């Protein structure tokens, strides 16, 4: 018994778009859906994408890059965050530096990334990593710091050593917050892939597709690319949310 209400606005938007496209009659401003939909309907064809490979190819390339950058960010940020959450000294040493680096937009690293990591996957992955790193780190620190003291003390009175406490208490107790950090971090990585794929030397990926289409004024391809980005983004976000419901429902239900 699903309500049709959520479909109302999308349908209205689509109709409004087509009507507007008809009246504006300028494919640079608003291409008619008849030029966008064929692209979306043939995600495996490279007929519409100016020789950059099919939508699916490009999406796969972007996803792979994001997965890599994101995984690296998580691999560095989670242990670091746990360390900073547990050790006041480590926190003291790193905090100021992290606070200064955090507000620098991933995009601003582009010139340096190219100089340091040269053209290619490493630079792209670096930009994505920067995007995901800080939300994961901050959430991990927060999660570890806001672990209930009692949980740790119970473990202590039951004879746990530091390794038990880390593995059996901290990691579990902070997991929901870390997971949220991962979700937010993934969202930002996914945003950064577009910027990263505007790096020179790139010839694949959804970000590249958008930029390349822009070079030839192919607004319809741009919009198709954005739709795919939106859909992939929403799907992955839902996967994270499902994970949260699946594994961390205890947090919402506790108390």
């Amino acid at each position: 018994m699903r309500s049709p209400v959520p479909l109302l606005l999308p349908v209205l938007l689509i109709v409004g778009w087509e009507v507007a496209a008809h009246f504006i009659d300028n494919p640079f401003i608003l291409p008619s859906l008849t030029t966008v939909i064929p692209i979306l309907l043939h995600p495996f064809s490279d007929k519409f994408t100016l020789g950059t490979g099919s939508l699916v190819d490009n999406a796969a390339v972007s996803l792979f890059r994001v997965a890599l950058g994101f995984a690296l960010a998580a691999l560095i940020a989670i242990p670091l965050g746990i360390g900073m959450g547990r050790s006041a000294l480590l926190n003291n040493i790193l905090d100021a530096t992290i606070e200064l680096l955090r507000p620098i937009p991933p995009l601003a690293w582009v010139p340096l990334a190219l100089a340091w990591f040269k053209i290619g996957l490493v630079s792209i992955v670096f930009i994505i990593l920067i995007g995901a790193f800080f939300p994961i780190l901050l959430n991990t620190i927060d999660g570890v710091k806001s672990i209930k003291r009692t949980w740790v003390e119970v473990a202590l009175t039951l004879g746990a050593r530091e390794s038990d406490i880390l593995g059996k208490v901290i990691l579990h107790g902070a997991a929901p917050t870390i997971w949220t950090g991962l979700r937010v971090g993934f969202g930002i990585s996914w945003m950064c892939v577009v910027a990263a794929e505007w790096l020179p030397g790139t010839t694949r990926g959804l970000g590249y597709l958008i930029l390349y289409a822009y070079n030839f004024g192919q607004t319809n391809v741009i919009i198709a690319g954005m739709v795919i980005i939106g859909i992939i983004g929403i799907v992955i976000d839902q996967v994270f949310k499902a994970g949260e419901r699946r594994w961390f429902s205890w947090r919402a239900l506790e108390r």
Partner: protein
Amino acid sequence: MTLTIRNITKDFLVPGDQSICALSEITFSVADEEFVSVLGPSGCGKTTLLRIIAGLEYATSGSIEINGEIISGRSPRMAMIFQEYSLYPWRTVRDNVTFGLEVGGMHKSQAREVAQTYLHLVGLDDFADRYPHELSGGMRQRVTVARALAIKPQILLMDEPFGALDAQTRNRLQEELLEIWEKTKKTIIFVTHSVDEAVYLADRLIVLTSRPARVCEVIPIHLARPRDRTGQEFARVRRQVLDLIAQPKCSLQ
């Protein structure tokens, strides 16, 4: 096995280089298999005292002794049940109980068997695979009791374990606790600020003053068990205790 709390004083440093004296020269002993209640007004330092005994906090001065031997830090002979809700919400009831066994190095399958025994003891056989959030407050506290007992401590430190429960549940758990105590023959230090609860449970009451806590009275309870809360006898002892702790030197109110 005798537990002796000797001359325990605790000052907390607080921001601004000041210090709060929470405990002042607390001394008392607990005999083997004795059930002692520590009674004191809110914020007097009861939790602090228990934490020091459990080795979670250092005393500023004084010592904790078992059979005359000073212990420092945590001792496997003691287990503590906390005032606030303290189960691991991501573990099932059974896995909460096995926690102490696991970190003690016991094999998983054996730990599960032991857990089963103690879950049975607290009457939660059927809830082993549930998660804490699926249990009522009373059931949760029974799990913490099982978890503490599972590591076979000699001394059980209980910090207002039933404080958050409603009266009916609380009464029921008090009865169950006494049963378990009789079965397992533990030494129990039970902190509370309810005179009723203390009188119903304990062999002896240690009454603390408000902060800084000092021992103000030690009152043995000579009521036969099982005690009847609604009985005349109970009301009399209860009144006696209330009168005693109403002395100015106790300043319980």
